[in-house]
């Protein structure tokens, strides 16, 4: 059971701010898009299992369609050939959307400092949370998820219309209108 946000309570009603309610709803129902490529994907499979249950944080339904996902979890080595695919998947997600780079390869290329590996997915898409590790244990992935939940809970509702968001997308050559 989640904690109620601060608000005014009375007999039969509870009044709080819309930001708090929407943040509560969003943070407790993040549906991940598991973009699992390598060993970190196996750790994510363990995280989804019963022992380290990710669905108790609300991520009950991993979706492989970006249209229905909130959180893009990139887990594994992304080759330069795969980079446009990651970018296209990110573009086709609907706002509000967050990105988690799981593992060293997704964060910075990891140990593969070579011509074929993309040195971190933040070269093509904006990333919110980085989870270091090679591979990170399920507890670390859950820690990253808790951080994304904190971001989702405190994010402004009009962020997608803000100049900061538009400038961020512009810096990645992502055109939206």
């Amino acid at each position, binding site marked *: 059971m989640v904690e109620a946000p601060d608000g005014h309570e009375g007999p039969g009603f509870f009044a709080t701010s819309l930001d708090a309610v929407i943040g509560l709803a969003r943070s407790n129902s993040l549906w991940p898009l598991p973009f699992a490529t390598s060993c970190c994907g196996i750790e994510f499979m363990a995280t989804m299992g019963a022992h380290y249950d990710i669905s108790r944080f609300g991520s009950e339904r991993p979706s492989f369609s970006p*249209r229905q996902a909130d959180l893009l979890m990139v887990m594994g080595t992304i080759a330069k050939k795969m980079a446009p*695919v990651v970018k296209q998947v990110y573009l086709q997600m609907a706002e509000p959307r967050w990105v988690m780079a799981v593992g060293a390869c997704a964060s910075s290329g990891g140990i593969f400092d070579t011509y074929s590996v993309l040195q971190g997915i933040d070269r093509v898409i904006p990333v919110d949370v980085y989870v270091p590790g090679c591979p990170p244990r399920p507890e670390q992935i859950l820690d990253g998820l808790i951080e994304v939940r904190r971001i989702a809970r405190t994010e402004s509702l009009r962020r997608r219309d803000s100049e900061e968001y538009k400038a961020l997308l512009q810096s990645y050559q992502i055109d939206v209108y």
Partner: protein
Amino acid sequence: MKQHLPADYLPILVQIAAAIGFIIFAMTVTHLLGPKIKGAQKNDPFECGIESQGDARTPISVRYFLIAILFVLFDVEIIFMYPWAVNFMKLGWFGFYEMIVFVALLMAGFYYIIKKGVLDWERLDS
């Protein structure tokens, strides 16, 4: 049996109007008030991150349609048999012969279908 006036069915119309009204209200309000962010690649059909080519039109074998349409026809025939079953004794011999004629006409159609080989999916050409 109690006689029903046409005015007794007014609540149904009210229910239909309320349902349609809610749909129209919800759709217009969300379309007007909701945030819209579009992008060229954002609106593209999702094809696992690669560019989609062409459309999704592929020719589908006609036998699926035939099976479905035959189901509809024979299902309606069965529906006609339910009131016959309920009023079997009251309809008497005349009703029985009428139903035999009805079923015979449909069985003639069924015989035609079998002879045409529509239900035989083993053959390559339908």
